[in-house]
């Protein structure tokens, strides 16, 4: 933990020449940044090493004197570190701003020190496929090593070391963020006092892998993907990435939510046009989701991160017994699922709970009634908020936090 430089980088002019995404956050993000030099490589599960590498992160609140009030928030596939501030790229509020922030009833940053870092492989300032490969001076592209959820967590642990925090009070995350929470609890047992894996699973199902493969194939079938070297060509596989996002977006919603929101309503027209225009509102909505996504996300990052999720299978790493991953854990767990989430259904959460019970871990499990599908974890659901607040405040009491 020596020789680390930490840069608090103020807003940079977007579109610098060194940057290869439309938003200019890859090398010099609008975030805090820690750079790990070539002498401190990150050992990856694929066997390769990554060095140098950097992690972009946001913090909220103040770390207390004994460094016991830190909460690490792990973001999902297309999320980023801007959990509770206006996103510098989209201009939208932070993705969990309703839950986390100053004076917020669930996680009040007047009380807790909240950290959220862009994952390894991301495109918002942490090292990923759009970053410069020091060996070539050009972006990694598909020369970037294939990473895992465990690699992301190991990279985060380096950040937590850098911040001088021995034990995180809590690690919290939904979806792929929940996978990181589980990895944290399994890999760094003494460093996680409380863990909140939300709307997640301990392994990716065949169906989940299948949906991801559709998305990746859409990206790679786009001629502008250029075998992953589109940065040098000055193009972006917009169509492919957009289709990938459209397909994925369906999996984040429920049939009920789609029906309620759009039904068979037509978009700005009274009659069918007998064409392939976006006649239906739901088509128009998905196209919009796809096209705005392209403006903020790197296509290769999408390939790498979905791959990391597909490879995720905690039981397989522990002799095919999930419980082994948590053997001896002292962490307090609260597992949360949502009734209409068919991407990470309740039975996946139950499998986690079963494994935790088998090692007599301290675990709570709540299934929240919601018709909003997987995305419910990002929305303001009072029952969900009550659960998280109850769990966090009880844990804080146990931890002796004021």
């Amino acid at each position: 933990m020596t020789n680390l430089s930490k840069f608090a980088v103020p807003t940079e002019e977007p579109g610098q020449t060194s940057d290869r995404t439309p938003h200019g956050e890859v090398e010099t993000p609008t975030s805090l940044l820690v750079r790990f030099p070539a002498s401190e490589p990150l050992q990856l599960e694929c066997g390769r090493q990554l060095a140098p590498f950097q992690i972009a992160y946001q913090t909220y609140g103040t770390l207390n004197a004994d460094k016991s009030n830190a909460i690490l928030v792990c973001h999902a596939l297309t999320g980023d570190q801007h959990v509770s501030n206006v996103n510098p790229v989209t201009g939208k509020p932070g993705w969990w701003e309703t839950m986390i922030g100053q004076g917020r009833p669930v996680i009040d940053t007047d009380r807790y020190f909240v950290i959220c870092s862009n994952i390894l492989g991301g495109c918002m300032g942490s090292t990923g496929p759009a970053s410069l490969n020091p060996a070539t001076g050009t972006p990694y592209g598909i020369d970037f090593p294939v990473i895992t959820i465990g690699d992301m967590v190991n990279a985060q642990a380096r950040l937590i070391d850098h911040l001088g925090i021995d034990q995180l009070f809590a690690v919290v995350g939904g979806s792929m963020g929940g996978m990181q929470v589980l990895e944290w609890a399994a890999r760094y047992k003494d460093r996680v006092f409380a863990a909140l894996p939300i709307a997640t699973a301990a392994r990716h199902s065949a169906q989940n892998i299948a949906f991801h493969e559709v998305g990746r194939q859409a990206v790679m079938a786009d001629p502008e993907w250029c075998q992953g070297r589109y940065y040098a060509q000055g193009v972006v596989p917009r169509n492919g990435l957009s289709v990938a996002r459209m397909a994925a977006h369906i999996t984040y919603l429920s049939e009920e939510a789609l029906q309620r929101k759009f039904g068979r309503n037509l978009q700005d027209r009274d009659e069918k046009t007998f064409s392939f225009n976006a006649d239906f509102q739901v088509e128009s909505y998905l196209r919009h989701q796809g096209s705005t996504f392209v403006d903020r996300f790197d296509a290769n990052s999408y390939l790498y991160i979905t791959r990391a999720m597909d490879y995720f299978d905690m039981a397989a790493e522990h002799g095919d017994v999930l419980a082994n991953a948590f053997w001896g854990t002292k962490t307090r767990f609260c597992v949360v699922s949502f009734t209409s989430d068919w991407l990470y259904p309740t039975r996946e959460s139950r499998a986690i709970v079963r494994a935790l019970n088998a090692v007599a871990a301290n675990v709570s499990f709540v299934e929240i009634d919601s018709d909003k599908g997987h995305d419910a974890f990002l929305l303001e659901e009072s029952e969900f908020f009550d659960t998280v607040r109850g769990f966090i405040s009880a844990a804080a009491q146990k931890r002796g936090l004021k």
Partner: protein
Amino acid sequence: MTTHAPVHHSQPRVDHLFIAEMVEPGSRVLDVGCGDGALLHLLAETKMVDGRGVEISREGVNASVARGLSVIQGDADSDLSDYPDQAFDYAILSLTIQATRYPKTVLENLLRIGRYAIVSFPNFGHWKIRRDLLLTGRMPMTRNLPEPWYSSPDAHLCTIADFVSLCREVDAHVEQAVAFNSVGRRLPIGATLSMQNLLGEKAVFRLSKKQTPGQTAAHGA
């Protein structure tokens, strides 16, 4: 937004108080069928236990977790097999055994998971129930059993005598047993089993697994 008032409001249930009397301070407790967490809360407050709960209803689980208790949504009939042997000092089933599908299996699991099992249940042998059945010829409905037979969750009602015989069948040793009447008064010590079965409206049993000869006690139990 729903609120979750702190729990020191209502009077503790009588059977909860009898159960609490049987629990050693600072022990590890699993409450199966914990409802909204009232007993766990009582035990945490008065006995400083390390408590966990299992509850079938989503509302009960959510209320418990929002209160800061460690409770999972689960089913006594299907989910107890996930727990390791002797993981808790006490595995408690308060007024729940009669609502399980397989009371015998549930009891065996409790005896396996806890060093002690504590079970409370409504006594179907109580004289009022016997009287009502005798006089009306219909399934009794009482304060403790308010639902008609067709909608009652209590599919496996039993008497104190029935429960004692089940204990024998699963090799459970009765460490302690308390029967009490409608106002929560404990029946006098020395009352015979048949008197308890007649006068007790509810009962609480603390049980342990009988060690068969040659079998060593697990974890020094």
